């Protein structure tokens, strides 16, 4: 049980947090043939775009309503309309996902109202799906924006229908990489079920080389799939922040759901296996029985190195929950924990204290830790504190392969445990002759130091 503290200071230093609108934009990127669009100044989009390009090492489709001083004050109706028309003309997407920003929320633009008007004025847009989500920059963090976007996508696009046997919705949280999602798909399919994954970054941001250029996302959840999520037998929400979206789907289409807080670690994976076995009526495939055994063996081998280690983690709540519990469950101490936003998970974390703060707060508390886990912005503090540094989360701009990092499922957990144990092994202290010598009494020790210094 942890005490959750909101850090009391005026100035955030070395932010851990990113904004909600770009969280929403990334969720939209998990839809096929979609153009994520921020309703704000062009800089809002440019910063997000650069961030995602550096993280995924992919071309990133993202547009802006290009608000300026005057249009902000007069209201952004014209800009939203023009943006939709321009995108429709130039990129011909199936879906335009619009997220608001601090700028347009401060003004109070009623974008839902705008969209109704635009729909009336432009019957030619009938086929185009428009999803708008309100994400003021000054409320919440990246994962909140993602969560709101997914809930809104489901609310707008899912349609109730006769149940399709074996069809399962997987609502994927923002803490999952394309590689993670691919792993989940394989697992679900291995039980003979047909997953619809939403948002599906494994299709769009997985680093494939398409045969043709596309100005919109290529791969991801299709509009047809989105519509029939309402006809699925049940929904798996991966990550606590997917609960709202799952609830919306249940309320609207009667699809029951189960929230799996994490699939990293033995317990989470076991729960998934039991659930899939129950829903599919099939036993867990042999492949996973072997993998489970490998994970158990990895835990046995690695606990020597991980037990007793102090770990500093800076991550969004749902990522934090998975990795924090994994390593605490292997005997490590979560000595310094910082996150970005409120979540019901935080107070259940096996740590003394969880701060909602920034990397300065984490740095202040990480002295004497054995490992730092956070996104790439931890690089400066890792260097200053001389800490081994495992990069997890977004952004990861100074390493390759961010999209393919897999840290869930039996196999992904096994590999993560090995990676961290190896980092500790690499740091192992080489014993020296004076390691176990009792220090002389205080005064004498100081005296000898001084005499050495004098020579």
């Amino acid at each position, binding site marked *: 049980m942890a005490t959750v503290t909101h850090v009391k200071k005026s100035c955030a230093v070395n932010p851990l947090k990113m904004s909600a609108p770009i969280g929403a934009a990334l969720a939209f990127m998990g839809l096929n043939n979609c153009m994520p669009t921020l309703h704000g100044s*062009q*800089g809002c989009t440019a910063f997000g775009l*650069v961030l995602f*390009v550096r993280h995924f*090492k992919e071309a990133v489709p993202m547009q*802006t309503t290009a608000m300026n001083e005057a249009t902000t004050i007069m209201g952004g109706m014209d800009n939203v309309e*023009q943006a939709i028309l321009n995108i429709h003309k130039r990129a011909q997407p199936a879906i335009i996902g619009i997220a608001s920003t601090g700028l347009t929320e401060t003004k109070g633009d009623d974008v839902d109202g705008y969209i109704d008007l635009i729909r009336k004025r432009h019957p030619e847009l009938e086929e185009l799906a428009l999803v708008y989500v309100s994400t003021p920059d000054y409320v919440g*963090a990246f994962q909140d924006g993602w969560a709101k976007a997914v809930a809104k996508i489901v609310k707008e696009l899912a349609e109730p229908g006769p149940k399709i046997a074996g069809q399962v919705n997987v609502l994927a949280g923002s803490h999952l990489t394309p590689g993670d999602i691919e792993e989940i798909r394989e697992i679900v399919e291995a039980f003979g079920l047909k997953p619809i994954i939403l948002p599906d970054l494994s299709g769009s941001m997985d680093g494939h*080389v398409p045969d043709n250029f596309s*100005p919109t996302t290529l791969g991801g959840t299709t509009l047809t799939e989105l519509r029939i999520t309402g006809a699925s037998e049940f929904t798996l929400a991966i990550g606590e922040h997917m609960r709202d979206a799952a609830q919306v789907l249940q309320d609207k289409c009667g699809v029951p759901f189960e929230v799996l807080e994490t699939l990293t670690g033995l317990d989470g994976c076991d729960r998934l296996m039991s659930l899939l076995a129950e829903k599919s009526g099939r036993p867990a495939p042999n492949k996973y029985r072997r993998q489970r055994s490998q994970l158990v063996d990895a835990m046995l081998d690695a606990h020597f190195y991980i037990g007793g280690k102090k770990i500093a983690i800076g991550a969004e709540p749902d990522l934090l929950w998975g990795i924090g519990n994994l390593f605490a469950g292997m005997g490590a101490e979560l000595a310094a924990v910082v996150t970005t936003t409120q979540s019901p998970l935080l107070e259940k974390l096996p740590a003394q204290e969880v701060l909602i703060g920034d990397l300065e707060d984490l740095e202040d508390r990480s002295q004497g830790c054995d490992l730092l886990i956070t996104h790439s912005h931890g690089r400066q503090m890792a260097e200053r504190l001389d800490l081994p540094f495992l990069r997890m989360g977004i952004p990861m701009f100074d390493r390759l392969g961010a999209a393919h990092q897999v840290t869930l499922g039996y196999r992904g957990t096994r590999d993560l445990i090995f990676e961290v144990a190896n980092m500790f092994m690499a740091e192992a202290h080489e014993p020296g002759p004076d390691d176990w010598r009792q220090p002389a009494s205080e005064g004498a020790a100081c005296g000898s130091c001084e005499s050495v210094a004098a020579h």
Partner: protein
Amino acid sequence: MSTLSSKVQEVFDEPACGKNQAKGEKERKKGCTKQLQPGAAAGGCAFDGAKIALQPITDVAHLVHGPIACEGNSWDNRGAKSSGSRLYRTGFTTDINELDVVYGGEKRLFRSVKEIVDKYDPPAIFVYQTCVTALIGDDIEAVCKAATQKFGKPVIPVNAPGFVGNKNLGNKLAGEALLDYVIGTAEPETTTPYDINIIGEYNLAGELWQVKPLLDEMGVRILSCISGDAKYQEVAYSHRAKAAMMVCSKAMINIARKMDERYQIPFFEGSFYGISDMSDSLRNIAKLLVEKGAPADLLSRTEAIIRREETAFWQAMEPYRDRLKGVKVLLITGGVKSWSVVSALQEVGMEIVGTSVKKSTLEDKQKIKELMGEDAHMIDDMTPREMYKMLKDAQAEIMLSGGRSQFIALKAKMPWLDINQERHHAYAGYSGMVTLVQEIDKALHNPMWEQVRKPAPWDKPVGAAPSPRLAAHRALEGAPTVCPLAA
């Protein structure tokens, strides 16, 4: 906001800018940026531009007053290098919340300044205005004034909220902040007849350090670089320089021009990219200094250095001349870089098949025309799809651009080189040009291209014999068989 809008008008009305002066009164009022098209725009905002221009000042705290997006999504992402303090790479933001939006964020801003003074004690703090805090009417000038008095150190407002315009405008507004609050507020310990300012050089990837050894050898002292690897004090006493070089095209022309007016520091516009531009720049520096009273032997010493460096460069180029002759380059970048890189690449025999002029000024365009001829393929607003097609059809063999369009080239399985602010290699001066050519050569001739262009075993191969570079690519992917390289 009235002061901000008058500032914007003032910046737009730049007497040293030929393009601006050629306009009528009404046109000029509209400013120098094209109205952005919603749904078809992609550039950075004025705040981004201001940050790019000032963040290279290494020992000050750069505090962004606004919601988390402005700093949280973008901090520590630029490649300006420092020889000393690392404070400029620390992200400071007021990260305002909903209550601040309702009640105003001035108090939080003031307290933030205090926290920074207490914890980091920098020589100065730069406070950046953003859209939301501008919209709710936070008066950062007043807060900075109060904080300067209270804490006894300069707290400088940079009033360039994103929604007033594009990056270029932000560069200029940042320049105004330096002119209003920093330049001329301190005195150097000593001055020499060889003191210059370099304006608009950001020391990306350490490029200033590719040039500085030569200036050192000439006996020229960089009194202040605005703003690459600069310390606050150096900018504050930059008004004592004898002459100035303006590097980044029009980005900071207002600083150069106003320092000339206020402090009689003559300036010239030059570039460190490309051999002839580099040599011209060294010459101009020497010439201006001599005109201002430096001993005349500076000129001959400079010429000797230029001769030596140029000879060394051409020697270094020998192995590449044949390998790069006629290689078709597509150049997608902003203002200054277009023409200075165009001339550089032409010097080693490459052919520029197109260059973007989206962010270029009229003068930039004129220069490109001089370099590439009247029929220069200038691309005003090229869509990613068009870039992709040009590369896929091998109308260009390599693209040089910023990181955002990188994957357009790579997904077309064509070589790409980063020449924007996130780049890792330094391309300035004579040594930088050698690096650029080496990097282009490395990119073009990597054996990997042949492998990645091969079809997968399950796709029917055309059965072409392996041939070098593009020929393989074209044959295997079934593109038109006329190879521009063979012609």
